[in-house]
């Protein structure tokens, strides 16, 4: 299943968004236009749906409360709402629609509460809150049915889908220096600190087959890499990745992940995530620490990995190289543009001049990225 449409109101820096999504969806926009905030819509739903440590209250609290979540442009209407449509593919009608609205109590604990929670299954509404019970006991509205196993039987598929969403913003340094940093691993490990542990928990045959596929894909990017293996340190038992490079000294031996380049580490973890699971995967700027020659191969690589697993990818990016692939459809790109009341989100091919340029054979990267650079970037260098 994939998310085929998302509608939000008053969410962070978006006053109103209503866009269709495809299997592979790119989000482009200048710094601080809200690319991560848009991805956070799906993380928010995941945090509500999660069985362990999830729920509406926690999802709002971990984001600093309603006042941090609500768009500053929301003056007369204090409600935040999110609606997602789920379908088997982007060209099929929606099977599920899940919608919630959230406000903050005007008095007392000022807790967030639901203004509505609705679910449709094939156009038939299977949940409509607030219902009679909610009206009798307002306290009930501080929890969604999404987070309550004994209340969401009728739409369990939606719960499973939303809670399996993965968010990745890989920071190779955290992985490489994990021992030295001894950092707290954020829940769901978005920064890839526990990547090796995750590999270690996977069964040996799966690890082998995945590493084999990663190795093949990596050869494009790192041609001198010959072999990739997973091992455990014979003394400490810690999991490690090691690679054999073709080298001017053939006996140079294996290198461990702490000797890999940032780009190599990032690519390995990225490719692993693509092969793992089939739920929605949110990728934050996958182009970081990779050179442009590799970055422009990422889009087709994503498409190839998606063929094997029908996993939806939503990818935020700054890179025109990533979008320079002629195979990228204008419908696969969301363009974020700052406007007077929050950020505008539009599908690239819905923008008149972009359509004219695409029809003339320019790539999305050439058209969309120069403009996403803010008009005043030049002034950055003039700072005294």
């Amino acid at each position, binding site marked *: 299943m994939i998310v085929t449409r998302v509608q939000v109101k008053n969410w962070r820096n978006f006053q109103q968004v209503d866009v269709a999504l495809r299997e592979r969806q790119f989000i482009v926009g200048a710094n601080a236009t809200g690319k991560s905030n848009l991805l956070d819509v799906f993380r928010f739903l995941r945090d509500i749906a999660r069985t362990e440590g999830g729920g509406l209250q926690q999802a709002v609290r971990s984001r600093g409360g309603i006042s941090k979540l609500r768009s500053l442009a929301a003056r007369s209407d204090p409600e935040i709402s999110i609606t997602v449509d789920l379908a088997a593919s982007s060209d099929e009608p929606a099977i599920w629609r899940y919608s919630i609205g959230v406000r903050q109590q005007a008095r007392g604990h000022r807790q967030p509460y639901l203004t509505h929670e609705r679910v449709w299954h094939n156009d038939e509404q299977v949940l409509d809150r607030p219902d009679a019970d909610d009206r009798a006991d307002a306290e009930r509205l501080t929890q969604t049915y999404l987070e309550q196993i004994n209340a969401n039987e009728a739409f369990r598929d939606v719960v499973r889908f939303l809670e399996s969403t993965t968010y990745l913003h890989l920071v190779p340094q955290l992985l490489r220096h994990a021992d030295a940093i001894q950092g707290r691993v954020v829940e769901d490990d978005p920064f890839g600190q526990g990547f090796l542990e995750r590999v270690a928990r996977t069964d040996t045959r799966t690890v082998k087959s995945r590493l084999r596929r990663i190795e093949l894909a990596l050869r494009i990017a790192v041609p001198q890499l010959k072999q990739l293996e997973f091992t455990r340190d014979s003394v400490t038992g810690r999991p490690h990745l090691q690679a054999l490079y073709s080298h001017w000294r053939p006996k140079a031996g294996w290198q461990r992940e702490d000797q890999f380049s940032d780009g190599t580490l990032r690519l390995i973890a990225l490719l692993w995530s693509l092969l793992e699971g089939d739920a929605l995967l949110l990728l934050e700027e996958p182009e970081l620490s990779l050179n442009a020659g590799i970055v422009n191969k990422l889009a087709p690589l994503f498409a190839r990995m998606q063929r094997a697993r029908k996993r939806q990818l939503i990818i935020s990016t700054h890179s025109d190289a990533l979008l320079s692939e002629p195979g990228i459809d204008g419908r696969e790109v969301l363009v974020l543009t700052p406007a007077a009341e929050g950020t505008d989100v539009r599908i690239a091919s819905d923008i008149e*001049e972009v359509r004219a340029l695409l029809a003339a054979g*320019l790539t999305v990267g050439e058209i969309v990225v*120069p403009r996403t650079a803010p008009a005043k970037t030049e002034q950055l260098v003039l700072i005294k």
Partner: protein
Amino acid sequence: MTRARAAILAVEDAVAQAVGEKICAKCAIDVARVIGLKGKGYLKTRADGLNRAAAGFPVIMFVDQDRKQDCPPNLLSTWFAGPLKRSFTLCVSVMEVESWLLADRAAFASFLGIPAAKVPERPDLIPRPKERIVSLARQSRHKTTRITLVPAEGSTAAVGPQYNPCLVDWVARKWSPRRAARRSESLARTVRKLEV
């Protein structure tokens, strides 16, 4: 009431973008999108595509002539496969967009911190206006101007470390296409074309 016009701007670099945006603002044209910023070679590879795109949305392309042989008729025959669409406007600066900055003589002289008399009267006649700007900046009264616009001794760069952002900033704040058009025929032609 006339409807606001909008166009796609195709430019070689940031200075040309700033100049193009300023001219468009004067001519009441809304810049819908900027394409290029990757040098002249890139524009050349995309020229014909942009001409085709003009069928769907107006395009204004700013190009430096750079060399004598790249005069507009030659550009038309070497860069484009067919005739230009009516909604495609080709604006060629002689020899470089920098000559259009020099053409706003008094204002540019005060920006550089040099006497106005040192700025050439007919910048369209100068073979390499960018080089001229750098050599004028070298004579500036202001140390910052010398540091930002002039490459350091022994540097392989043609311009100083903050050349582009400084010019872009000045163009956006001070440059007047109308004043400059009086001294540059190629700019006057461009403004006339875009005003209609």
